[in-house]
């Protein structure tokens, strides 16, 4: 079981299968988390099912010295970075072996050893903290870039605009990653923005931007690699918008009764996992038997994670009073 709980940053090589199996790991993890909620009374959770290509594509482009700030839909970013599914699930269940000793739950998981810092579940919170993390990088002579994941909902917060403006003025090394998933909690983006694109909001602040198909993991990785190169070369922040879709509801359990079924169906046809699987089958990089074996292997990993998490004890009640002050 110990091998399950490593804290090593995943280093992605050139093999496209790594991108696929990481996406599959995330998908199965999140569906298991939702299942545990539905069937075993686990606390509610926010998933990013359907957005795996964005998480994996961006994280695969990062170096080991780069840092990540994420939000309430963080499982993909954490797992792509190498987080143990066992410890992550233990955290979601509020157990002692979780990344935060059970005090976070699923909503604000940080894993400092993986460079995933200051996760905030306040929409837009990560945007306000990213400038400070990047200022430390800049002033302390560290080379790592700060990747800040947020959604179209956060882009409608004032902090988005304050953050972009300050990062541009101070030339902070931030890769802003907008996962435009069309949903702002229970409200569709078209009700809250007149533009379809968040990337268009970067330019007035003097920030270069690009938009990418957020459901194509290789396209995301390529775009993120280019964006990171631009940040390192020009010493300026960059905004990458990934156009994707949240296939599950806002917060489990959620019957998605408010979702246009036609729109949902059309995005299901663009599922990032199916897309990558079809591509790799087509290219002969993997065959169906290989895919099936991979599925079984990942399902076993998730089963083991669930066993580990459920077996992990709750924190001692005395923990209520620890970690308040340094």
């Amino acid at each position, binding site marked *: 079981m110990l091998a399950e709980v490593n804290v090593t940053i995943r280093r992605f090589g050139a093999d496209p299968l790594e991108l696929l199996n990481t996406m599959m790991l995330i998908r199965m993890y999140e569906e298991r988390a939702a299942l545990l909620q539905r069937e075993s009374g686990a606390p509610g959770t926010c998933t990013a099912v359907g957005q795996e290509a964005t998480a994996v594509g961006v994280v695969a482009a990062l170096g080991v010295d780069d*840092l990540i700030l994420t939000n309430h839909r963080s499982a993909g970013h954490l797992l792509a970075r190498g987080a143990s599914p066992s410890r992550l699930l233990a955290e979601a269940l509020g157990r002692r072996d*979780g*990344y*935060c*000793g*059970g*005090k*976070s739950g699923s909503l*604000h998981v*940080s*894993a*400092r050893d993986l460079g995933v*810092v*200051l*996760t*905030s579940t*306040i929409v837009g*919170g990560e*945007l*306000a*903290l*990213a*400038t*400070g*993390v*990047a*200022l*430390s*990088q800049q*002033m*302390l002579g560290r080379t790592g870039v700060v990747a800040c994941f947020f959604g179209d909902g956060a882009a409608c917060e*004032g*902090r988005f605009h*304050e*953050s972009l*403006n*300050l990062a541009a*003025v101070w030339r902070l090394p931030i890769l802003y990653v907008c996962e435009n998933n069309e949903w702002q909690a229970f409200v569709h983006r078209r009700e809250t923005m007149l533009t379809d694109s968040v990337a268009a909001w970067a330019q007035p602040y003097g920030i270069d931007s690009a938009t990418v198909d957020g459901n194509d993991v290789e396209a995301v990785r390529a775009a993120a690699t280019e964006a990171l190169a631009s940040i390192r070369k020009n010493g300026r922040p960059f905004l990458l918008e990934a156009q994707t879709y949240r296939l599950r509801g806002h917060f489990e359990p959620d019957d998605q009764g408010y979702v246009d079924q036609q729109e949902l169906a059309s995005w299901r046809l663009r599922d990032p996992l199916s897309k990558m699987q079809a591509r790799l089958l087509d290219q002969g990089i993997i065959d169906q038997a290989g895919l099936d074996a991979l599925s079984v292997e990942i399902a076993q990993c998730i089963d083991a994670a669930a066993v580990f998490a459920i077996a992990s004890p709750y924190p001692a009640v005395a923990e209520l009073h*620890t*970690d*308040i*002050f*340094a």
Partner: protein
Amino acid sequence: MKPVTVLEAIDQALAEEMAHDPRVILMGEGVATKRKALLAEFGADRVRNTPLAEGIIAGTAVGAAATGLRPVIDLLFAPFLCYAMDELVNSAGKLRYLSGGQFAFPLVAIAMTGAGWGVGAQHNHNIEAWFVHTPGLKVVMPSSVADFKSLLKAAIRDDNPVLFFVDIGLAHTEGELPAQEAAVRLGEAVVRRIGEDATLISYAKTVGVCERAAAVLAEEGVSAEVLDLRTLKPLDEAAVLASVRRTGRAVVVHEASRNCGVGAEIAAMLTEQTWATLKGPVLRVGGPDAPAPASYPLEQAYVPQVEDVVSSVRRLTRSAAAA
């Protein structure tokens, strides 16, 4: 030694701590414009003007504090902290706990507040109790020139987020700095005047009000102790309890409005822990539940006056005599 003002003492503390530790940086609206000496000594990298955007100033400080810097931010006036509440409360106050202790936030947020300049309620609002009520934050509100310097230095060296409130009415008051600087820790109250019949518990500008009230009471033969809390969180409960157990009477005095203020907390604590020794109810003298007005006579009516404190103590001593 030449007397210095509170604002000069703050500048001295900043300069000394920036010289002591290269990780200390200063950010805010006009800090580089107004603090020319600091800018000249430490450079534009460490003394940074910012946009007029308190949220991102605070967020930047919180993110920087967690990753190796020790920021001091000047947010100018306490009501402006409303724009920075998410960063101070939800991030600085909670992310250490929620992450299971993975991060510390050594930062100081400075803001002015209080009556005296007629600036009105959007520049003068004593909201220190909000932060006392919030986990993970420390709150400092000094009254003397020496304390402004030593407590700001202590706040900068503390590994936790500290709200450091500067009472506007004290900004230009002068005082002597001790030749040998006393190392004051956060969370230590100080007795400003020793007394036996009642304890006047206060902080910031109203400590002076209590001292003047104690002088009036002394002429009436009532000996009042004046306790300056200096730090509101952590609160020096031991000092409060020890004094009131001795005197048996307590009046808490602050400019912030009474309802759910620091005085309410102290009154409750004294009731719970010193009931047997109390000779009367714990009384509070504080501002009304109203925005602070700009007009001078209204502003003065808002603020606790010497007579208010004196009459509160008289109420306690006379009811005891009657009993």
